[in-house]
């Protein structure tokens, strides 16, 4: 027959552990960064951008030549926000092989680089522009 004192001890330990577990439920919430696990606006915007791009490119064959154009000047790093956007787009575009803008049928471009893009043959008029998220657009080459 089980020792009633032993059973009581087990029950006490179970209660103590339950209280500790409830305290622990509050602890991580309080200990971790106030905004976590909900991402900040920038992170959410990047996710939306990737979702939108995937949606836009869903019907485009995977081997269609794609270009990517940033407002980066030679030798100068991009500002962190634009750079994060660029990397997120690259992640969404993978495993598509990116080519030079001059050889591309479609170009994912930053709004600040559109003037530069308009100098490339086939992209002069910039009429076929699909907005992705603020700052980034998809430009389709006009028929030759």
């Amino acid at each position, binding site marked *: 027959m089980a020792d009633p004192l032993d059973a009581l001890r087990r029950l006490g330990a179970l209660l103590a552990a339950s209280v500790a*577990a409830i305290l*622990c439920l509050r602890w*991580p919430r309080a200990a*971790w960064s106030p905004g976590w696990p909900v991402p900040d606006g920038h992170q959410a915007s990047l996710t939306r951008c990737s979702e939108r791009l995937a949606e836009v490119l869903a019907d485009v064959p995977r081997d269609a030549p794609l270009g990517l154009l940033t407002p980066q000047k030679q030798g100068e790093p991009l500002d962190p926000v634009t750079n994060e956007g660029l990397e997120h787009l690259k992640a969404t575009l993978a*495993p598509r092989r990116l080519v030079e803008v001059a050889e591309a049928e479609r170009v994912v471009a930053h709004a600040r680089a559109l003037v530069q893009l308009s100098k490339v043959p086939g992209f002069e008029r910039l009429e076929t522009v699909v907005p992705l998220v603020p700052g980034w657009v998809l430009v389709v080459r006009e028929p030759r």
Partner: protein
Amino acid sequence: MAGTLAGVVLGLALAWLQGALLVGWLWPGRARPALALLALAFPAGLALSSSAFFLWSVASGGRVEVFPVLELLATAAAAVLARRRARRGRLLWPRPARAALAWGAPLLLVSLAGIVLALLIEASAAQPWGHWDAWAMINQKARYLAAGGDAWRWIFAGPPIHHRDYPLLLSASVARLWSWSAVLGAPGFALLAPQVLSLATFLACLAALVAPAALLCASGLAALVGLGFFALGWDLEWGAMQYADFAQATYLAWGAAVLALAARRPAAAERWCGLLGFLAGASAWCKNEGLAFAALLLVATVLALRPRGARAWMRLAGGALVAGLAVAVLKLGFAGRSRVFEARTRSVWTDLGDGERYRSLVGFLREHVGTNWSAGALLALLVAALLVPPVRRARRAWIPLGLALAQALVFALVMLTTREDFAWHLVTAADRLLLQVYPLALLGVAAALRPR
């Protein structure tokens, strides 16, 4: 969705089985601690299956669509072989404890792990792409690896991907899970695979602390060591970021723990050499920091065990080759020159003599630990372990502590001599130093306080 989920579950289960077969083969002795073997089998299987996936891509020219079938056949053959050649041995399962404290601590650990896991799942849902390293490197490379054909080579020759020379344990693991989902009728790059893998490596890291601690020190302390892991506070958020740092910490902890176990009986030490070599190779296949740890572990193995005879060295080299071959193929065949060795604007000696860099590093770590970690008492434990005169049996505790110290030193040297912007590198890398070295140090502390 069902095909994706089935692919992820089956892929992970198969990796676990492969790891169990490998660890069952390499673990010496007849008495086998069941929980420790189960805990080690998962990271071992990840290293094995991901390196096999990468090597198959290289050898077959990217015919990844047939990999799952080949993997299944190879695993089944290995399982049959292992069953035939099974040594007489017995699995040791932990006995249920009678003392309230002895089973209260594990209960608390499981409760806390469940709560943290729930928060991490919430975080994964809120940031499905993970963080920078995940989308810009690990999972981006995984997409090319999973695409098959020539696409996987574009990691090195296509659009600029950061850190082309980086080991591919996680990238190849994600790609492998996608190839399993594709075979089961769900092609594509579902984010579920890297999300689940991220959480799994987080749990593997926790298990890499608790399971060896139960072997190295008093069993009641093992659960407390696990609770100590949660002192990382909101650094635990990294468990949902789809990064490789918890995976790396897992191999570091297992490497040090297995060496400490082997050092108990130096006469039979050579029998551990195969497993130690494998863990060194797995660590090198996970991250570049792991390459440094692999070298440290091999040196520590030679110093602590003094392997004699060709057989011991063959075991060490053979074990290292199992997971390390992929590293060699990647580094020598594809990765090109690492950025670490590119031309510098300042000499290494100028950087090492820059007192401001040391002050910044110490200041950052002090501030980070002070503000982010919720249990400074555990650091006090570390100090206590260093101050308490080590008893004779606790000598092996210095193996995890020594390796933690050496790895931290390598990490610090890389940060101090970085050719990138120092402030940026500090913010990027200092967290990783703590994440990777802290579990190792915790293991050493536990073994020093109450050695078994």
